[in-house]
């Protein structure tokens, strides 16, 4: 009975969706968001004079606020639209993906959140370089950071352009330029304080928008998830509710799982957030809050995906976009009308804007704090000069991201996200972890570990089926796994350990002992 009424509804769907035409509600909503956030930037600009204010919001963000901001940094449009789309077209397999994205957070909590907060200042390289030789560590870790940021940024920009074209009927090029300019303004004028508030507002909008969407959809099923799942099973078969063909090779599964899980713990723009809170206690609270919100969000996306599958229908979703990326938006239109579609579309756009702002800020910090101060100025900090470089780097990254967005137009960007996570998991995470827990870790060990992780990630992903077969159209991949993390991350750990043991660094081992006081007691932490 339920199914027949649903089928009726589906056939009553308007033949053409309003997607792709200029929707006044979404345009008004979006400009409202930009206006409010730019006002915050103006307010933040007045408070942003020193380095600590620019990079770390003066360390005045509360644990709960930072938790929301972390969730905002992490819940990209790709995970909102992409995972809902994956569930809508492939069923349960989409959930496996989102679980991988979530389980990295407990590891951040157990292994690195407190030491990071206690040892670092502005970037995660502060922690790695704490007892090692500054220059080599700063150079190589900023390469790791900037590579991660670049690939993540390209994926977001190209995604933004495509999304806005579909949503607003706006030109791709125009969309990329708008996103690039607005995010540069946030970072340039308001620094970390403005970026944090942009993330908080966006997180609240995204969470509440997704909640309303789920409630509106579940209303069709008498607010019973059981009815929803039954409808899925009746319409598309019971197989949709259980794992399907997504994971076939266990090594592939493990490799992807490790990249998602440990990549999170190596993302520079996430790690940077731990310096915005006053102490280790607030850092802990922020991870707890972030994990809760992100988990809740992924459960919502799962319901959105299945509701779209039943209410909108797979053929309609796949007809508009093969990857299913428009599923959440089609569902919004179906369940809440054009006005609600406009709201969700504006939220998705705002989401991209906020994520690229966070990425740009962490890239600029790495250039000004790690490269300029510690490499070119040999550690002599000149606040004024550093701020100048940070702002120039922000503008340069803004221009670069617009250019990259234009150059990579129309490219499949899924592999770039995979690559960003795999570089983060292989180049950044092992060195960070070893520097925190291993006394015998040396400068050379860190340099070689980061270089190995970054280089192997890059080379192996080109040789993997993701690029070698899907993009370069060779018949067979040279490297069998779709994601290289299993090999590149293990190699980074292995090389870091072997090089450190082969060439002990007495000074670093001695300093490790006094570093402990700061790691565990927070004494001397800024």
């Amino acid at each position, binding site marked *: 009975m339920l199914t027949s009424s649903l089928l009726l509804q589906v056939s009553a769907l308007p033949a053409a969706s309003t997607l792709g035409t200029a929707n006044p509600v979404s345009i008004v909503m979006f400009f409202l968001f930009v206006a409010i956030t730019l006002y915050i930037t103006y307010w933040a600009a007045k408070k942003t004079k020193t380095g600590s204010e620019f990079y770390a919001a003066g360390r005045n963000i509360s644990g709960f606020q930072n938790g929301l901001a972390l969730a905002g940094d992490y819940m990209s449009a790709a995970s909102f639209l992409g995972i809902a789309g994956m569930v809508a077209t492939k069923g349960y397999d989409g959930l496996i993906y989102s*679980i991988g994205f979530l389980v990295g957070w407990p590891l951040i909590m157990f292994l690195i959140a407190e030491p990071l907060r206690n040892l670092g200042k502005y970037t995660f390289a502060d922690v790695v370089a704490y007892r090692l030789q500054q220059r080599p560590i700063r150079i190589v870790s900023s390469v790791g950071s900037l590579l991660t940021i670049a690939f993540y940024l390209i994926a977001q920009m190209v995604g933004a352009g495509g999304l806005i074209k579909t949503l607003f009927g706006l030109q791709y090029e125009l969309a990329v330029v708008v996103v690039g300019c607005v995010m540069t303004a946030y970072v340039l004028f308001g620094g970390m304080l403005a970026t944090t508030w942009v993330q908080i507002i966006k997180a609240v909008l995204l969470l509440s928008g997704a909640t309303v969407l789920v409630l509106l959809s579940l209303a069709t099923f008498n607010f019973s998830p059981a009815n929803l799942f039954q409808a899925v099973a009746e319409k598309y078969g019971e197989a949709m*509710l259980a794992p399907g063909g997504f994971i076939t090779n266990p090594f592939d*599964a*493990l490799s992807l799982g490790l990249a998602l899980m440990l990549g999170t713990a190596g993302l520079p723009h996430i790690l940077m957030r731990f310096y915005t809170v006053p102490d280790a206690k607030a850092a802990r609270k922020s991870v707890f809050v972030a*994990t809760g919100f992100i988990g809740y969000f992924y459960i919502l996306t799962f319901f959105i995906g299945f509701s779209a599958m039943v209410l909108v229908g797979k053929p309609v979703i796949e007809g508009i976009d093969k990857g299913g990326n428009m599923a959440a938006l089609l569902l919004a239109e179906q369940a809440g009308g054009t006005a609600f579609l406009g709201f969700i579309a504006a939220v998705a756009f705002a989401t991209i804007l906020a994520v690229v702002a966070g990425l740009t800020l962490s890239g600029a910090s790495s250039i000004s704090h790690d490269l300029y101060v510690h490499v070119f100025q040999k550690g002599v900090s000149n606040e004024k000069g550093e701020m100048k470089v940070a702002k120039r780097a922000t503008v340069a990254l803004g221009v670069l991201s617009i250019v990259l967005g234009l150059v990579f137009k129309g490219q499949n960007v899924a592999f770039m996200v995979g690559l960003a996570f795999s570089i983060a998991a292989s180049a950044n995470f092992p060195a960070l972890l070893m520097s925190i827990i291993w006394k015998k870790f040396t400068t050379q060990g860190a340099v070689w570990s980061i270089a190995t992780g970054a280089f192997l990630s890059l080379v192996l992903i080109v040789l993997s089926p993701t690029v070698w077969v899907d993009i370069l159209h060779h018949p067979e991949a040279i490297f069998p796994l779709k994601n290289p993390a299993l090999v590149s991350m293990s190699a980074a750990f292995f090389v870091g350990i072997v090089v450190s043991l082969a060439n002990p660094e007495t000074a670093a081992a001695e300093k490790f002992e006094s570093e402990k*006081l700061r790691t565990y007691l927070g004494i001397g932490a800024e």
Partner: protein
Amino acid sequence: MHPPHKTARAVIESPEFKRLVSKRWSVSLLLTISILVIYIGFLLVVAFDKELLAVKIGSYLPWALPIGFGIIVSAWLLTGIYVYWANNTYDTEVQEIKNKMNAN
């Protein structure tokens, strides 16, 4: 920035500080292993024995759904356990050591 060298040495070498550090890592590692076992275990079941997850609870709902949601909830609960432990046990001990340092 650094505390006086002598006190620092004494604290690092004190049994209570060593106990604090090793307790911190026992808790961290126990929780880390828990989440790894949960997640990698789940992936391995997906890779090797999908049918196990397709087994139904009622007439149509497979175990895959509650297990998937359960992993998300367990990740959150494990972080909660850590925060609870750290805020109560760990922070108290840190404060005790700090008080002793100041008293010296």
